[in-house]
Every structure is written in structure tokens, then in C-alpha cells.
């Protein structure tokens, strides 16, 4: 009788823990997220939201942060600088909120930066990679790496690994795209390549036939395209349709997403890119994230989900160490030296951004594969 009671009680306990919402004795800890939940960049914002919600669920299921549940206050910025600045006003004046994660684009993050700076609240962006961003305020942090690191990496890839010397650039016309282009072009020029022409397009553009026709006239061996997977898929398909096949296409890690393969189909075969996040990475933290994400959302997480997941976990970890004081959180974050993120180790430089390890990738038979020539 007595021996049977123990497992039963244990089972009951476990069931209670899992099934019933945990009855929190303490007040929630609030973290704000400013992200494009609707609008042209909604899919990126929704990727964040999925990864962050899952991470918060896990944290709270494991008892929260020192017994206090974590709660996210989402704000939809549409990645529009007007909205991200307005959200910054709202978040910084809300005393419950201890820190902020966001925004998506460099433009939106930088528009909100002075507000977080004045109020003294951490603004940790999962994706902002403009080299001028994190140094812009002692309260700003970037974890995705910057084009200052990625640009030269891609230039070396194009020139030294692939041996392409005649290069043209087609970039998205926003802060991120312009910085991407500049770091790449400067590095490529230094390495002795000839940059034949630089063209840009606006975020909403879908018709690339004109600009591709123009670039084709310059007869480059390689086009470098700092863009997102949506436009890259269109650029590739339209390039194919125009019959422009004697050119190599390359773009930065922003392209590394299963969506590119899905949207681009055959046309993205042979595309060169890089990545900081691999779903197939055997490290346990990566596998835990990927398996959990796949089980919950029936989709493989992309880099955007990965960096958002790292951002929330890093923030939670920091708060666990120093509590909820806005200033204390900043001072602790700065010291981060060895955080095991799913997008690689996070260690902040004195500019409060990180240097990432990139991998050489190429699309082969509809899959991203390591380029190892």
C-alpha cells in the first residue's frame, strides 16, 4: 500500500505542474519586444514572436526567473521608424518594463535609439547589423554581427574562394543594405576586384527585370545582392526568365532561410551565401531549440527565429543574475563573454556588438550545403 502511494503522488504532482498554470506568488517581470508583427516585414516579426513565445514558455515552465514569471509586452512597429520610436516612448515610460528587445531593421532600431538612450533602458536588437548602431548608445546591443565583419568575409569568398573579379552589386535601399554594400565593395576593391556597377531597389520592389537587364549589360561574373530571401527569390526567378545564366549570384547571411529555397525553387541553385545559424548543428542547445520549434510550429526555425531566441534567453539569463534594475541589466550585459547562443557564442566587443563565425554556404540541388572547395 505504502509503496504504491509514492509513484501515484509523484504522478499527480507532475500532472499538476504540467497541466495547471503555475500559480505565481510573485509579480511578473516584463520585457518589451518591438517588432514588425504586421506589414511588409511581418514574417520576420512573426518568426521572432514564435521563438520568443516558446523560450518564455520554457523559462516559465521551469519556474520563471527566481520564482517570478517572465511576461512579454509586444509592440507592432511594422519595422517603420515612426512606429518604433513611438513604441520606445511607450515602453520607456512603463515602469514595469525592465528592458527591450528590437527592432528588426537598422532604420527602425536607430530611430528609437535616442529614446532608449535618454530613458536608460537596454535596447537589444536580434537583427540590427548596421556597424554604427550598437556604438551609437551605451544602452544599445547587437547580437547578429555587423556588416563590418560580414562584408569582408563575403568579399573574400567571392574573390579568393570563387575567383570572381568582375563584380556588380544590387542592394536593398535601406540603412542595412547600404552598409552591407559599402563594407563589401570596400573590401572587394581592396582585394583587387573590379566593381562594375552598383544598383539599388526599394523595399517594396517586386519588378527586377529592368535593373537586371541593366546589370547584365555590364557583363559581370558575379552579382552580390544584399537583400532578404523574399526579394532574392524574385530576383533569381526573374533573372532566369530573362535568360541571364552566365553569372554567379551571392548574398549575405540574411538569405539563409528555408524560405529562400521554397520561394526560389530551381532558380536559387548555385547561389552563394553564409550563415551563423544551422538547424543541423549538433550542439545540444541548437538541437533543443530546433526540435522544440519544429514540434510546436511544424516548421524549421530560420536565422531570424534563432537570434530572437538567443536575445530573449540572454536577457533572461542577465536578469536572473542581477535582478530587474534597468541600469544593472545593462552593466551585466556588457560583461557577457561566453553565452552559448544557438547562433553561436555571444561575447560583446567594446562596441556592444558581436563578431560572428560565418560558414561558407552554397545552394545545391535545392539545399543549403557547406562549400568546401
Amino acid at each position, binding site marked *: 500500500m505504502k509503496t504504491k502511494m509514492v509513484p501515484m503522488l509523484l504522478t499527480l504532482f507532475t500532472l499538476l505542474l504540467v497541466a495547471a498554470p503555475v500559480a505565481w506568488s510573485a509579480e511578473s517581470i516584463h520585457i518589451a519586444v518591438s517588432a514588425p508583427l504586421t506589414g511588409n516585414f511581418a514574417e520576420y516579426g512573426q518568426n521572432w514572436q514564435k521563438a520568443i513565445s516558446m523560450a518564455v514558455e520554457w523559462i516559465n515552465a521551469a519556474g520563471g526567473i527566481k520564482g517570478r514569471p517572465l511576461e512579454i509586452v509586444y509592440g507592432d512597429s511594422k519595422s517603420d521608424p515612426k512606429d518604433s520610436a513611438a513604441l520606445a516612448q511607450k515602453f520607456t515610460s512603463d515602469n514595469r518594463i525592465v528592458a527591450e528587445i528590437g527592432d528588426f531593421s537598422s532604420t527602425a532600431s536607430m530611430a528609437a535609439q535616442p529614446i532608449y538612450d535618454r530613458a536608460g533602458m537596454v535596447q537589444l536588437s536580434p537583427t540590427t547589423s548596421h556597424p554604427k548602431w550598437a556604438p551609437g548608445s551605451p544602452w544599445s546591443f547587437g547580437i547578429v554581427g555587423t556588416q563590418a565583419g560580414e562584408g569582408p568575409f563575403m568579399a573574400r569568398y567571392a574573390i579568393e574562394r570563387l575567383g570572381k573579379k568582375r563584380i556588380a552589386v544590387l542592394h536593398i535601399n535601406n540603412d542595412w543594405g547600404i552598409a552591407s554594400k559599402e563594407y563589401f565593395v570596400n573590401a572587394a576593391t581592396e582585394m583587387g576586384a573590379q566593381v562594375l556597377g552598383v544598383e539599388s531597389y526599394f523595399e517594396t520592389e517586386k519588378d527586377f527585370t*529592368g535593373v537586371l*537587364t541593366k546589370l547584365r549589360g555590364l557583363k559581370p561574373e558575379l552579382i552580390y545582392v544584399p537583400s532578404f530571401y523574399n526579394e532574392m527569390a524574385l530576383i533569381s526567378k526573374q533573372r532566369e526568365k530573362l535568360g541571364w545564366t552566365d553569372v554567379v549570384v551571392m548574398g549575405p547571411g540574411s538569405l539563409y532561410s528555408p524560405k529562400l529555397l521554397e520561394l526560389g525553387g530551381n532558380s536559387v541553385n548555385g547561389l552563394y551565401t553564409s550563415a551563423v545559424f544551422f538547424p543541423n548543428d549538433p550542439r545540444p542547445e541548437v538541437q533543443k531549440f530546433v526540435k522544440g520549434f519544429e514540434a510546436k510550429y511544424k516548421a524549421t526555425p530560420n536565422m531570424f527565429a534563432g537570434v530572437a531566441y538567443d536575445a530573449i534567453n540572454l536577457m533572461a539569463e542577465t536578469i536572473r543574475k542581477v535582478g530587474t534594475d534597468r541600469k544593472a541589466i545593462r552593466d551585466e550585459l556588457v560583461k557577457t563573454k561566453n553565452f552559448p547562443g544557438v547562433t553561436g557564442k555571444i561575447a560583446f566587443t567594446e562596441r556592444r556588438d558581436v563578431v560572428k563565425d560565418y560558414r561558407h554556404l552554397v545552394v545545391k540541388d535545392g539545399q543549403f550545403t557547406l562549400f568546401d572547395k
Partner: protein
Amino acid sequence: MLVPQLINGLTQGSLYALIAIGFVIIFGTMNLVTFAHGEVYMAGAFVGAFAMSLWHLPWFVALVMGMAAAWVLGFLIEKVAFRPLRTAGHMPPLLITIGLSIILKDLAVVLFGAENRPVPSIYEQTVRLAGVQVSVLQLVILGLAGTLFLVLRLVIQGTKIGRAMRATAQDHEAASAMGVNVNRVFSIAFALASCLGGAAGVMIGIYYNAVYPTMGGTAGLKGFAACIFGGLTSIPGAILGGIIIGVVENLTVQFLASGYRDVVAFLVMVIVLVLRPQGLLGRKLKTV
């Protein structure tokens, strides 16, 4: 690269023209402007894209389905937004269509998601014509647009309902006195305009390989510009206007930069309107 750019512009422009004709038909018969036309185009594009990517139907079936869906949607919009307000002047229906455009766009985001939906590629080959490499798809689109222009002309010039539409446009009370059911003519005109917009949507989806909820915004604006450019009430004017805007855009990309394409296109439009306020092929409005 000049000839390929001209072909790019012509293809693009012929699709603007299809949208523009919708504005002309609606403005011409009902003297009203609809701001939901871009969203009807978007809806047609989505139906076409689903037909091809989910149900794996051939593109021409997808085209017919997209056109049919746009027809029905146009018919409903006319019933809901315009019919009850026929005597309310210009403003109320205009505002309702702005509202409808937002609702349709947001509905599409909710139903289909904000992201681009891929559309399968067709006619990926190219052919050489007089030494110039031309995309077969571009030729197909040009051919289709041309066919639609012709069919539309035949309907409007050569059929009873076309004649009733023109008569209604010129004098709806007199047409009514002749026994024309003016409400029915308005319904059909609106549906026909929407149907052409839907056709343009399906074709643009195929051409750019993507459809997305916000696609109606710029397309509607360009179509409206082409319609004004051509003189508001002239179908040949709208076709000409659409093609000129398309070609100017692509020449801007070639000789200036991609970012200036819309600026230059609208600038040319403004200059034309300053020189010819009635548009390219428009008549001066009669003061009755």
C-alpha cells in the same frame, strides 16, 4: 540593352494598362473612382496563385479563375458600396472603397499571411528575335494583354450590353428612358473592370513569381495614374498611358537608377497633365 528594356517596359506597361482600363470603365460609366481596385487585382492574383501552386492547374485555367473571382468581387463591391449610395455624391462611395481596400488587404494578411506567396514559373525559356534575347513569358503576357484589349473592344463596340454601357456613360437618364436597366449596366461595368484587374493580377503573379496582400497598393496607383494620363475616359488613352509609364520606368532604371523609376514615371505624368490637362486622349469635360 535598350531593346530588352523596351520589352520589359512594354510588358509591365500592358499590365498597368489592364488595371487602368478598369478605372476608365468605372469612371466612364458611373463617374466614380474606386480605391479598392488594387485589392480586387490582389484578390485575382491570389486566386490565380492558389490555382497554380495548390491545385496545380494550368496557368490559363488559373487566369480564368482569377478573372472570375475578381468579377464576383467587383459585382459585390458595386452592390455593397456603390448601389446604396448612388445618389449620395462622390465622397461617400469613395470613402467606402478606401475602407474596403483596407479591409480586403487586412483580410488577406489574416487569411494568407503577410509574406510573399510563390507562384510557379511557366515559360522559363527565351527566344532570339532579330538578335535580341526575349523571354517567352513576356511574349505570352503581351499576347494575352493584347487579346484582352481586343476582346474588350469587341464587347464594348459590338455588343448590346457594350452599347448600353456607352449610352449609359453618355446619358444615363436617357439610357434609362430607352429601357436600359442602369443598375444592371453599372453592375456589369464594375464587374468587367474588376475582371480585367484580376487578369492583370494573375499575370503579374506569374510574371514576378509572387503574390502578397499589399500588392494592390502601388499597382492601383500606377493604374490610376495611367488612367488619368490617358484622359480618364479613354480606353486607348489608358492603354497608351499604361505602356508609357511602363516604358519610362524601365528607361529610368537603365539610364538613371532603379530608385527613381516611380519618381520619373509620375513626373512625366505631371508634365503631360500640365501641358494637356485633359490627358493624352481625353476630351475636355463638357460643362453641362
